[in-house]
């Protein structure tokens, strides 16, 4: 078994707004192994991005990690001082963002944005060569000319590639990818996914890949966590999540994907809307929208338990019903 590069335990992140504290990430535990691509999927506002930002310590506004441990190679990142954290950022953990339009500095050339991220001691010339090399690695054509270009002279896909090149400049061992393909059109999405896969093979980088696109996740990830209302509802190898979901929410997500084979039928959608943070009651957060909800579900949140090898789910009804029942009750074959 490969060693764990990142181990997140009982992570809890809260935001202070108008004197109230809203918990947006609650009791999130997962680990990422060396060279693994770990996916986090879920609807908007489920806490995927906040989880990523909590790991690298870049929460927006009044966000604050209030509980749990984030162990990177055995070091708890929460206990590090800002100076020490800055050493980890870039050279150990890198991050790429959703919007390539707004993630690059508009008034600094792409080349300088790459070279300033290179941490190793080298001359300016070596840094420039390294930057060109990185641009070539991520598939930016004629990097020698484009090194002096600005972000607005790049297309969306090229900007995303440039962003990846910048994130790779100091050779991070773990890359946090916060919906890097969401803002791109499908062909470019495919190219970026292909690029990330290639990078994993070439430099053995681990990755946390956040997305709400199930198709993208299925293409890229080894293991997937499904988040809902700040909690992980299910973690399993990617194939298991898609072929054999064990949580009603995951199951609902799968059914909500349009398919050519069910053309003409009414597309399934999970009824209701995700809960607003702060409005959660005691029970399972999904219970108000769940087809299988019982009195018990409204009273307490079930633990994340291992149902089969490597497949964890947070549902108390699964043992009683079994997946066969899910399928029968919801009329899906």
């Amino acid at each position, binding site marked *: 078994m490969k060693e764990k590069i990142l181990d997140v335990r009982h992570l809890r992140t809260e935001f202070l707004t108008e004197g109230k504290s809203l918990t947006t990430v609650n009791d999130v535990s997962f680990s990422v192994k060396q060279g693994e691509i770990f996916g986090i999927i879920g609807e908007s506002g489920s806490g995927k991005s906040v989880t990523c930002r909590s790991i690298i310590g870049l929460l927006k506004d009044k966000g604050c990690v209030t509980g749990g441990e984030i162990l990177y190679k055995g070091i708890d990142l929460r206990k590090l001082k800002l100076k020490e954290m800055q050493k980890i*950022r870039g050279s150990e953990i890198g991050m790429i963002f959703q919007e390539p339009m707004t993630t690059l500095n508009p008034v600094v050339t792409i080349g300088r944005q790459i070279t300033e991220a290179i941490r190793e001691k080298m001359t300016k010339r070596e840094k420039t060569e390294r930057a060109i090399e990185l641009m070539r690695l991520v598939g930016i054509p004629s990097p020698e000319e484009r090194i002096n270009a*600005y972000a607005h002279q790049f297309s969306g896909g090229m900007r995303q590639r440039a962003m990846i090149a910048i994130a790779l400049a100091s050779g991070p061992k773990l890359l946090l990818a916060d919906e890097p393909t969401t803002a791109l059109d499908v062909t470019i999405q495919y190219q970026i996914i292909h690029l990330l896969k290639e990078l994993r093979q070439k430099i053995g980088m681990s990755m946390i890949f956040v997305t709400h696109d199930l198709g993208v996740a299925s293409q890229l990830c080894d293991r997937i966590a499904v988040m809902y209302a700040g909690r992980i509802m299910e973690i399993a190898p990617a194939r298991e999540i898609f072929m054999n979901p064990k949580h009603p929410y995951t199951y609902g997500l799968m059914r909500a994907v349009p398919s050519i084979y069910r053309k003409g039928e009414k597309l399934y959608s999970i009824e209701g809307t995700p809960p607003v943070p702060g409005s959660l009651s005691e029970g399972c957060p999904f219970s108000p929208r769940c087809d299988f909800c019982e009195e018990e579900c409204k009273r307490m949140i079930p633990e994340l338990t291992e149902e089969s090898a490597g497949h964890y789910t947070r549902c108390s009804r699964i043992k009683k019903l079994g997946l066969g029942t899910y399928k029968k009750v919801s009329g899906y074959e």
Partner: protein
Amino acid sequence: MDEFVYILKRILQMIPVLIIVTVLIFFGMRMIPGDPALLMLGNRASDEALAMMHAKLGFDKPLMIQYFLFLRDCVLFRFGDSITLRMPITELFKQKAAITISLTAMTIIFDVLISVPLGIYCGMHKDSKLDTFLNSASLVFVSIPEFLIGLVLLMLLAVRIHVFPVGGWGNSFGEHIRSLILPSLTGALMTSSLVMRNIRENVIKVLNMDYVDFARSKGLPEIWVRMRYVLRNVLIPAVTLLAMRMTAMLAGSIVIESIFALPGIGQMMLNAILARDYPLVQATVYLFALIVMIMNLITDVSYSILDPRVKL
């Protein structure tokens, strides 16, 4: 090459604007009742004396001819003498412009010194006590007319406590500087309030941009992130705003120079209008318009140098 073509185009565009300016000022001046010759000779002047004076000043020619003579002078930059001051206008303008330009320069120095540090501080410490205070204070200075600010400063710092002179220009360099402080502060309070608010808003906006977080995720030190990512993106719009205010300051110099009795262009123009000194008023307004247009052009060009996204 593109830049050159652009600048040439802009210079050519100035010509029709300048022609309109000459029409407005020439005919506008003559629509105001009053006769410079009558003002010079007094009410009891005889008709012959008046006619002689008119001929001497060239006012006996038809209006259109007078206008075209003025237009010719504008093209050749040959403005003749002032009627009231009996001095070459070019010479007068040079003398007075030195004062007005020093005033504007000093105002801008105050502007930058006040607005940049405070704007950045307020943006970075949004909703802190100082931020809330400065934000309301700046609103006050934006809304109060300049002459009132000037008079209050004058009362407090020149009349009550004799820190600064009440007015005038002084005779030595030190006195010049001392007499410029209050007037430039008066002009700066309003503009720097505007610029400070602009910088504050932009700091808040830029700090929320993904590229700032992305820079941090590269492991860059905070000071570097703030200098290269926040400051650069904040100062570009601030520089433009300041440059745009500069032209407004030139216009505002009329009021400020009157309050502080500074013998600058504003004062000279005011006196010239009151004395119906047609040639002086026409030449000053024409040169003013020219300066404003050139400054606007410089602003636009500098903007494209500062911000790579802006193409000329």
